Protein backbone atom coordinates (compact mmCIF):
# COMPACT_ATOMS: atom_id res chain seq x y z
CA UNK A 1 0.00 0.00 0.00
CA UNK A 2 2.79 2.36 0.99
CA UNK A 3 4.73 1.39 -2.14
CA UNK A 4 1.73 2.20 -4.31
CA UNK A 5 1.29 5.56 -2.62
CA UNK A 6 4.96 6.42 -3.08
CA UNK A 7 4.74 5.35 -6.71
CA UNK A 8 1.69 7.55 -7.17
CA UNK A 9 3.60 10.49 -5.68
CA UNK A 10 6.49 9.92 -8.12
CA UNK A 11 4.15 9.52 -11.09
CA UNK A 12 2.15 12.56 -10.03
CA UNK A 13 5.34 14.63 -9.78
CA UNK A 14 6.44 13.52 -13.25
CA UNK A 15 3.11 14.42 -14.85
CA UNK A 16 2.91 17.74 -13.00
CA UNK A 17 6.45 18.60 -14.09
CA UNK A 18 5.75 17.58 -17.68
CA UNK A 19 2.53 19.58 -17.71
CA UNK A 20 4.04 22.75 -16.26
CA UNK A 21 6.87 22.70 -18.81
CA UNK A 22 4.28 22.76 -21.56
CA UNK A 23 1.95 25.24 -19.88
CA UNK A 24 4.69 27.87 -19.77
CA UNK A 25 5.47 27.52 -23.48
CA UNK A 26 2.28 26.54 -25.32
CA UNK A 27 3.61 27.80 -28.66
CA UNK A 28 6.35 25.19 -28.62
CA UNK A 29 3.88 22.49 -27.73
CA UNK A 30 1.68 23.50 -30.66
CA UNK A 31 4.68 22.89 -32.91
CA UNK A 32 5.43 19.57 -31.23
CA UNK A 33 1.88 18.28 -31.74
CA UNK A 34 1.64 19.59 -35.30
CA UNK A 35 4.83 17.68 -36.16
CA UNK A 36 2.86 14.45 -35.81
CA UNK A 37 0.66 15.51 -38.75
CA UNK A 38 -2.31 13.73 -37.18
CA UNK A 39 -4.80 16.47 -36.41
CA UNK A 40 -6.24 19.54 -38.06
CA UNK A 41 -4.68 22.79 -36.90
CA UNK A 42 -7.62 23.84 -34.74
CA UNK A 43 -7.51 20.56 -32.80
CA UNK A 44 -3.72 20.83 -32.51
CA UNK A 45 -3.94 24.25 -30.87
CA UNK A 46 -6.81 23.15 -28.61
CA UNK A 47 -4.87 20.08 -27.46
CA UNK A 48 -1.74 22.14 -26.87
CA UNK A 49 -3.67 24.19 -24.33
CA UNK A 50 -5.68 21.32 -22.88
CA UNK A 51 -3.28 18.37 -22.49
CA UNK A 52 -0.76 20.08 -20.17
CA UNK A 53 -3.52 21.09 -17.75
CA UNK A 54 -4.96 17.60 -17.92
CA UNK A 55 -1.56 16.21 -16.96
CA UNK A 56 -1.21 18.64 -14.05
CA UNK A 57 -4.72 18.05 -12.72
CA UNK A 58 -4.54 14.28 -13.11
CA UNK A 59 -1.05 14.37 -11.57
CA UNK A 60 -2.39 16.24 -8.55
CA UNK A 61 -5.36 13.86 -8.34
CA UNK A 62 -2.93 10.93 -8.07
CA UNK A 63 -1.98 12.28 -4.66
CA UNK A 64 -5.58 12.28 -3.45
CA UNK A 65 -6.57 8.68 -2.75
CA UNK A 66 -10.29 9.33 -3.22
CA UNK A 67 -9.91 10.22 -6.90
CA UNK A 68 -6.61 8.53 -7.65
CA UNK A 69 -8.23 5.62 -9.54
CA UNK A 70 -9.87 8.02 -11.95
CA UNK A 71 -6.55 9.79 -12.44
CA UNK A 72 -4.80 6.46 -13.04
CA UNK A 73 -7.39 5.55 -15.66
CA UNK A 74 -7.01 8.91 -17.37
CA UNK A 75 -3.22 8.94 -17.35
CA UNK A 76 -3.03 5.32 -18.54
CA UNK A 77 -5.26 6.23 -21.46
CA UNK A 78 -3.14 9.29 -22.27
CA UNK A 79 0.07 7.27 -22.13
CA UNK A 80 -1.39 4.60 -24.43
CA UNK A 81 -2.50 7.27 -26.91
CA UNK A 82 0.95 8.78 -26.84
CA UNK A 83 2.67 5.42 -27.40
CA UNK A 84 0.43 4.72 -30.41
CA UNK A 85 0.98 8.24 -31.83
CA UNK A 86 4.76 7.96 -31.39
CA UNK A 87 4.93 4.52 -32.95
CA UNK A 88 2.73 5.73 -35.82
CA UNK A 89 4.98 8.73 -36.42
CA UNK A 90 8.04 6.50 -36.39
CA UNK A 91 6.40 4.08 -38.83
CA UNK A 92 5.64 6.99 -41.18
CA UNK A 93 9.29 8.03 -41.05
CA UNK A 94 8.63 11.30 -39.22
CA UNK A 95 11.46 12.74 -37.17
CA UNK A 96 9.35 14.23 -34.40
CA UNK A 97 9.98 15.72 -31.01
CA UNK A 98 7.54 14.17 -28.59
CA UNK A 99 7.22 17.29 -26.48
CA UNK A 100 6.51 15.18 -23.42
CA UNK A 101 8.93 17.11 -21.26
CA UNK A 102 8.94 20.26 -23.32
CA UNK A 103 12.18 20.75 -25.15
CA UNK A 104 14.16 19.17 -22.33
CA UNK A 105 13.48 15.85 -24.07
CA UNK A 106 14.06 17.16 -27.57
CA UNK A 107 17.16 15.09 -28.23
CA UNK A 108 15.92 11.85 -26.66
CA UNK A 109 15.90 8.86 -28.97
CA UNK A 110 12.68 7.13 -29.96
CA UNK A 111 13.73 4.05 -27.94
CA UNK A 112 14.31 6.13 -24.83
CA UNK A 113 10.90 7.77 -25.15
CA UNK A 114 9.20 4.44 -25.64
CA UNK A 115 11.03 2.86 -22.71
CA UNK A 116 9.96 5.68 -20.40
CA UNK A 117 6.37 5.50 -21.65
CA UNK A 118 6.09 1.76 -21.10
CA UNK A 119 7.71 2.07 -17.66
CA UNK A 120 5.19 4.75 -16.70
CA UNK A 121 2.31 2.77 -18.14
CA UNK A 122 3.42 -0.28 -16.15
CA UNK A 123 3.65 1.79 -12.97
CA UNK A 124 0.20 3.30 -13.57
CA UNK A 125 -1.35 -0.13 -14.09
CA UNK A 126 0.42 -1.47 -11.00
CA UNK A 127 -1.00 1.37 -8.90
CA UNK A 128 -4.49 0.71 -10.28
CA UNK A 129 -4.46 -2.95 -9.29
CA UNK A 130 -6.67 -3.65 -6.27
CA UNK A 131 -4.78 -4.20 -3.02
CA UNK A 132 -4.64 -7.78 -1.78
CA UNK A 133 -6.66 -8.38 1.34
CA UNK A 134 -4.58 -9.52 4.26
CA UNK A 135 -6.29 -12.17 6.34
CA UNK A 136 -5.22 -12.64 9.94
CA UNK A 137 -3.10 -15.75 10.34
CA UNK A 138 -4.94 -18.72 11.72
CA UNK A 139 -3.74 -19.87 15.08
Amino acid at each position, binding site marked *: MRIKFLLRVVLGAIFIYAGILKIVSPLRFVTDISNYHLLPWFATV*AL*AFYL*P*WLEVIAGLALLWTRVSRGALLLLSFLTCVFIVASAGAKARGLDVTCGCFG*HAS*KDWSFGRHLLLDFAMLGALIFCALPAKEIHPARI
Partner: protein
Amino acid sequence: MGSFFRQAVCLAALALLPAAGEAIYFRERVSWRQPAPSDEVNLAQADGFAAQVMWIDARPREQFEAKHVPGAFLLNAGEWDELLPAMLNAWTPDRKLVVYCSAQSCDASKEVARRLKEEAGLKNVYVLTGGWEAWQSGHYAH
Protein backbone atom coordinates in the same frame (compact mmCIF):
# COMPACT_ATOMS: atom_id res chain seq x y z
CA MET B 1 -15.11 0.70 -12.67
CA GLY B 2 -18.04 3.04 -13.24
CA SER B 3 -16.97 5.35 -10.45
CA PHE B 4 -13.39 5.43 -11.78
CA PHE B 5 -14.72 6.39 -15.17
CA ARG B 6 -16.83 9.16 -13.63
CA GLN B 7 -13.79 10.42 -11.73
CA ALA B 8 -11.76 10.45 -14.94
CA VAL B 9 -14.48 12.38 -16.78
CA CYS B 10 -14.70 14.91 -13.94
CA LEU B 11 -10.93 15.43 -13.95
CA ALA B 12 -10.94 15.80 -17.74
CA ALA B 13 -13.74 18.36 -17.49
CA LEU B 14 -11.93 20.22 -14.71
CA ALA B 15 -8.86 20.63 -16.92
CA LEU B 16 -10.97 22.50 -19.48
CA LEU B 17 -11.26 25.54 -17.20
CA PRO B 18 -7.58 26.53 -16.85
CA ALA B 19 -6.96 25.45 -20.45
CA ALA B 20 -9.64 27.86 -21.65
CA GLY B 21 -8.15 30.60 -19.47
CA GLU B 22 -4.71 30.03 -20.92
CA ALA B 23 -6.10 29.97 -24.46
CA ILE B 24 -7.73 33.34 -23.82
CA TYR B 25 -4.49 34.70 -22.32
CA PHE B 26 -2.48 33.64 -25.38
CA ARG B 27 -5.19 34.57 -27.92
CA GLU B 28 -3.00 37.24 -29.53
CA ARG B 29 0.00 34.95 -29.88
CA VAL B 30 -1.48 31.74 -31.21
CA SER B 31 -3.39 31.55 -34.45
CA TRP B 32 -6.33 29.14 -34.51
CA ARG B 33 -6.22 29.18 -38.27
CA GLN B 34 -3.76 27.06 -40.20
CA PRO B 35 -0.65 29.21 -40.75
CA ALA B 36 0.61 29.69 -44.26
CA PRO B 37 3.27 27.13 -45.12
CA SER B 38 6.78 28.36 -44.46
CA ASP B 39 8.69 29.60 -47.45
CA GLU B 40 10.61 26.64 -48.78
CA VAL B 41 13.40 26.73 -51.28
CA ASN B 42 15.11 23.87 -53.03
CA LEU B 43 18.88 23.53 -53.23
CA ALA B 44 19.12 25.22 -56.62
CA GLN B 45 17.17 28.22 -55.37
CA ALA B 46 19.28 28.42 -52.21
CA ASP B 47 22.48 28.27 -54.26
CA GLY B 48 20.99 31.03 -56.39
CA PHE B 49 21.09 33.35 -53.37
CA ALA B 50 24.89 33.15 -53.75
CA ALA B 51 26.74 35.41 -51.30
CA GLN B 52 23.49 36.59 -49.75
CA VAL B 53 22.73 33.19 -48.28
CA MET B 54 23.25 32.58 -44.59
CA TRP B 55 22.88 28.92 -43.68
CA ILE B 56 21.24 28.02 -40.39
CA ASP B 57 21.66 24.48 -39.10
CA ALA B 58 18.67 23.52 -36.94
CA ARG B 59 19.94 20.03 -36.08
CA PRO B 60 21.27 18.95 -32.65
CA ARG B 61 24.82 20.10 -31.87
CA GLU B 62 26.44 16.68 -32.27
CA GLN B 63 25.09 16.36 -35.81
CA PHE B 64 26.25 19.89 -36.62
CA GLU B 65 29.71 19.18 -35.26
CA ALA B 66 29.98 15.98 -37.27
CA LYS B 67 29.28 17.74 -40.58
CA HIS B 68 27.50 20.84 -41.75
CA VAL B 69 27.17 23.26 -44.61
CA PRO B 70 30.37 25.37 -44.70
CA GLY B 71 29.82 28.65 -42.89
CA ALA B 72 26.52 27.54 -41.38
CA PHE B 73 25.46 28.79 -37.97
CA LEU B 74 24.15 26.32 -35.44
CA LEU B 75 20.74 27.43 -34.16
CA ASN B 76 18.48 24.76 -32.73
CA ALA B 77 15.46 25.05 -30.45
CA GLY B 78 17.25 23.35 -27.55
CA GLU B 79 20.02 25.96 -27.39
CA TRP B 80 18.04 28.87 -28.81
CA ASP B 81 18.86 31.48 -26.18
CA GLU B 82 22.58 30.66 -26.18
CA LEU B 83 23.02 30.49 -29.95
CA LEU B 84 20.76 33.26 -31.23
CA PRO B 85 22.99 36.24 -30.24
CA ALA B 86 25.98 34.94 -32.23
CA MET B 87 23.80 34.40 -35.27
CA LEU B 88 22.25 37.85 -34.99
CA ASN B 89 25.71 39.43 -34.72
CA ALA B 90 26.62 37.96 -38.07
CA TRP B 91 23.28 38.79 -39.69
CA THR B 92 22.76 41.80 -41.90
CA PRO B 93 19.43 42.88 -43.44
CA ASP B 94 20.49 41.90 -46.95
CA ARG B 95 21.13 38.26 -45.97
CA LYS B 96 18.73 35.47 -46.86
CA LEU B 97 18.49 32.88 -44.14
CA VAL B 98 18.12 29.27 -45.28
CA VAL B 99 17.34 26.90 -42.44
CA TYR B 100 17.88 23.16 -42.73
CA CYS B 101 17.49 20.11 -40.54
CA SER B 102 18.38 16.50 -41.20
CA ALA B 103 15.97 15.44 -43.94
CA GLN B 104 12.62 16.06 -45.57
CA SER B 105 10.83 14.33 -42.71
CA CYS B 106 12.20 16.57 -39.94
CA ASP B 107 10.41 19.67 -38.70
CA ALA B 108 13.15 21.40 -36.71
CA SER B 109 13.98 23.73 -39.61
CA LYS B 110 10.36 24.86 -39.88
CA GLU B 111 10.21 25.57 -36.18
CA VAL B 112 13.48 27.53 -36.21
CA ALA B 113 12.33 29.45 -39.31
CA ARG B 114 9.04 30.28 -37.61
CA ARG B 115 10.80 31.51 -34.48
CA LEU B 116 13.30 33.56 -36.48
CA LYS B 117 10.36 35.31 -38.11
CA GLU B 118 8.03 35.60 -35.13
CA GLU B 119 10.41 35.98 -32.19
CA ALA B 120 13.50 37.53 -33.76
CA GLY B 121 11.44 39.52 -36.28
CA LEU B 122 13.64 38.60 -39.25
CA LYS B 123 12.52 38.57 -42.86
CA ASN B 124 13.83 36.56 -45.81
CA VAL B 125 13.80 33.31 -43.86
CA TYR B 126 13.51 30.11 -45.89
CA VAL B 127 13.47 26.39 -45.23
CA LEU B 128 15.63 24.12 -47.39
CA THR B 129 13.48 21.39 -48.92
CA GLY B 130 15.04 18.01 -48.19
CA GLY B 131 17.34 19.44 -45.51
CA TRP B 132 20.88 18.24 -44.95
CA GLU B 133 20.29 15.11 -47.04
CA ALA B 134 19.44 17.26 -50.06
CA TRP B 135 22.48 19.48 -49.52
CA GLN B 136 24.77 16.47 -49.16
CA SER B 137 23.50 14.90 -52.32
CA GLY B 138 24.13 18.14 -54.19
CA HIS B 139 27.47 19.19 -52.69
CA TYR B 140 30.57 17.76 -51.14
CA ALA B 141 30.11 17.88 -47.37
CA HIS B 142 32.91 19.47 -45.37
